[in-house]
């Protein structure tokens, strides 16, 4: 197994507020990690830095050999397109694009579009009959499945899921969790932020955050390998 994510003494300040304070841990390829902790503990900040949406104040965040903190704007853009697949709590689909076009949009920014592949990705998440529907014609669970298909379409090294079931009912939550299980079974590397212990328990490892640090009881676990 190779290390996909390597975080060393990562720190992020927003003015006087310290969102991340010397966080260090590693994630191996194929691992499913659950990040947990109260609101404001730094979970989303960590996801943003690993996803190239933000840059650290100090320390290093290395994803698939790339030190995110050293990338310029252009480098971060390519990094996001090639290495990362995002799944957001709010789904974040483009409202005027159909399901298949939302998936193709990620392909377009990565390289070239392949509608057949985009359709297959949606069929895989059970939306073969919803390809031409726009988000307003889809349920929350269906929208999140489109987001999962979009996250997978470019075969990213790391899937970052920020509260992927936070806006879903129980039935749709199960569908999305089953999808994540499938991805894990395919040895995809998943870093998932969640508030739900039941969902967190499905991961290989659980890392708890508190006030921008790894929770003391979890700090040792964070460095353990499954």
């Amino acid at each position: 197994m190779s290390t996909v994510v390597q975080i060393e003494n990562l720190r992020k300040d927003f003015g006087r507020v310290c969102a991340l304070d010397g966080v260090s841990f590693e994630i191996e390829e194929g691992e499913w990690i659950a990040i947990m902790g109260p609101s404001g503990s730094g979970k989303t900040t960590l996801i943003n830095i690993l996803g190239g949406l933000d840059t650290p104040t100090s320390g290093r965040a290395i994803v698939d050999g790339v030190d995110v903190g050293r990338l310029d704007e252009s480098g971060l853009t390519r990094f996001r397109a090639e290495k990362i697949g995002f799944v957001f709590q709010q789904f974040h689909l483009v409202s005027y694009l159909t399901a298949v076009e939302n998936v193709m949009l990620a392909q377009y920014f990565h390289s070239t579009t392949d509608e057949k592949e985009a359709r297959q990705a949606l069929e895989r998440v059970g939306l073969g009959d919803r390809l031409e529907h726009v988000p307003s014609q889809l349920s929350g669970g269906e929208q999140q499945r489109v987001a999962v298909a979009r996250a997978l379409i470019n075969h990213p090294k790391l899937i970052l899921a920020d509260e992927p079931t936070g806006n879903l009912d129980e039935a749709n939550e199960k569908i999305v969790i089953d999808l994540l299980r499938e991805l894990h079974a395919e040895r995809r590397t998943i870093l998932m932020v969640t508030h739900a212990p039941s969902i967190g328990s499905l991961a290989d490892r659980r890392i708890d955050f508190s006030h921008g640090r790894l929770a003391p009881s979890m700090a040792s676990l964070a460095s353990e390998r499954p």
Partner: protein
Amino acid sequence: MFWRLVFQLLRGSRARLTVAILALVSGAAVISGLLNLDFGVEYQLTQQFRALGANIVVTPQPAESAPESALTNPALMHEGVVLSHLQQIASPNISYAPFAYVVARSQGTAVVAVGTWLDELRILNPTWKLQGNWISARNDQTRCLVGRNAATQLHLTMGSPLQLQYLTRHSECTVAGIVNSGAADDDQIFMSLQALQTLADLPGKISVAQLSVSGNPKLIAGVASQLSAALPQLQVRPIREVTDAEGALLGRIRLLIVSMIILILVLTALCVLATMAALAMERRADIGLMKALGGSISRIVGFFVAEVGVLGAAGGLIGALLGAALSYWMGLRVFGAAIPPRWEVFPLTIVLMTIVAMAGALPLRMLGEVKPAIILRGE
């Protein structure tokens, strides 16, 4: 995918973009109408001013001709010399005719007899009103036209025989029409040049040549200058009152048109700008998402530039078509003659509207500042 997304962008924001396209179509329609008018106004003005009659006169040099004695002892030119040069510059836009004047007598009364090409009278004097018939044969020596004052004085009506005497020679013609010009022509009798030259025993001699050049003042001055160089012994003179008035009016109309076009372009750009500013705010979330998915700012802005480009081109095309109808109507109202659409107005309007739309899309620059992490948090 690029154009597919651009189409979806247009479709997705059609309510707001309707405002922008209405502004573009309205602006393009007026601009296209004004451009057609601008291109057509010169022709229309030229036609209008040509109706005022000749705009170049060829006469003997002043030293050879004293105005006060011109009718009694006129200086004359050689018909052949003048006409040979006029033939060299002949074109469909130039009409000309020689004139010879003598004071003859009829029924014991002195009248001014004018010998000319009878068929050109109507062209050189389009404002004349004629009772009777024009004479279409250039050298018709049997018929003549009579000014209304002369007709009254000599008790002539259409079909009346008219006898003229000059010294010991006589000439006779039938009155074909009575001229009402509102000017000195009403006192004159118009007969064929050849008949007058025979009557006055002035073979091959003329007093004046008049030209009506259809074109702008610059063209008229050019023709005058060309003739002047070819006929240095004669005086070639544009009639300044006509050409200067035409030039001044054309200049003023053009200034007005250009000012209005600039004003409308600015107003249209402001309208598009306001719409695009609101649209840019609406699309911040989409831009943040696209950036998060790895979209570079150049590729993302490319969508929106293409979107406004399509809007501008569509607005320009529709507006240009409406403007063609507008200029047609304006021509009828202002000049009494429709101004046909000019093909070059279409691409020009489309390009102008595309530039205006692009200028109006400047607020989209702010999209480059969008921070995806902030947008995705819902802030």
